[in-house]
């Protein structure tokens, strides 16, 4: 079993971030332990392998269009806000008008009135439930960042 200090010293040595004194300590420990020596050799070979790897570059043209894409998204974001606000206002007003019409009308059958009330109550309960979950439960859930 390799202790945490030796692990950290091996990492620092592999990445060229080790102090001279720590390097001497690591060298002495490697010489004294076959397990540590084996692990050190393995990590050095791994470093050689990954040292030649890099993230593949995308085609150059994406950099030319990058800012214009970001700008378009920013613009679209504003457009979506206006669109959403407008839609919410119009839909709310239409629903209100429709409900008002149904309840004002003496010709409307009773089951239509009951159905409308049921629809409204159901929608309100759902909305409250979703909002409560988003606002309170997620905020207090200590495992929300844990990959399930």
């Amino acid at each position: 079993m390799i202790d945490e200090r030796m692990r950290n010293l091996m990492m620092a040595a592999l990445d060229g971030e080790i102090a001279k004194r720590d390097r001497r300590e690591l060298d002495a420990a490697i010489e004294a332990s076959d397990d540590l020596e084996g692990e050190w050799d393995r990590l050095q070979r791994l470093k050689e392998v990954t040292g030649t790897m890099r993230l593949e570059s995308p085609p150059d043209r994406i950099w030319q269009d990058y800012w214009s894409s970001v700008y378009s998204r920013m613009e679209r974001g504003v457009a979506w806000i206006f669109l959403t606000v407008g839609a919410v206002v119009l839909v709310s007003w239409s629903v209100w008008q429709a409900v008002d019409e149904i309840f004002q009308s003496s010709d409307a059958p009773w089951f239509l009135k009951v159905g409308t009330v049921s629809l409204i109550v159901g929608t309100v309960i759902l909305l409250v439930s979703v909002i409560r979950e988003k606002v309170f439960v997620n905020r207090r859930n200590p495992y929300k960042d844990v990959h399930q």
Partner: protein
Amino acid sequence: MAREEPDDRTLVLRVQRGDHEAFGVLVDRHMRRAYFGALGLVGSHDDALDLSQDAFVRAYRARDSIDPDRPFYAWLYQILRRLCFNHLRDHRNRARRLREAHPWLADDAWSAAGRADPAITVEREEIRTRVRDSLALMPEREREVFVLKEFEGLKYREIGELLHIPIGTVMSRLYSARQRLANQLGDLL
């Protein structure tokens, strides 16, 4: 004489006063780093482009909360990594997707070997495939530290500052990541 480029602090202050062009300069300055930061985490060019651009858009929306006296990229990176982690959680079959995605990990030794010895080329290709698969399955936080160190070449101190974690944690995550990779490569090492 060339005009001196304004620093990030100056640009952030201008952005906070509603200057779009200043934000464009910030985007130009940090887009590559943001893109590669996302690529290392999600392993797909298309997703990296989409997520890095989304991070800039969200940064612009939240511009009033940027502290001009702190490094802009470190602040942006917090948004970017959150977007990338959420993206990975929303795509649970990412390992398969990554294998099918356009290659995102290049190996300079493989490219050089291709001109020399076909046997070495095959071995390097196998190594690259196993490294890529292992990275795809690695826990997000280990993968993040590994990518920042190995592919972006950051110092431990810089990684610690970027992720708000102690240097000891950087090293222990790196050790775990390398252990996984070494186990995955097994006989090829």
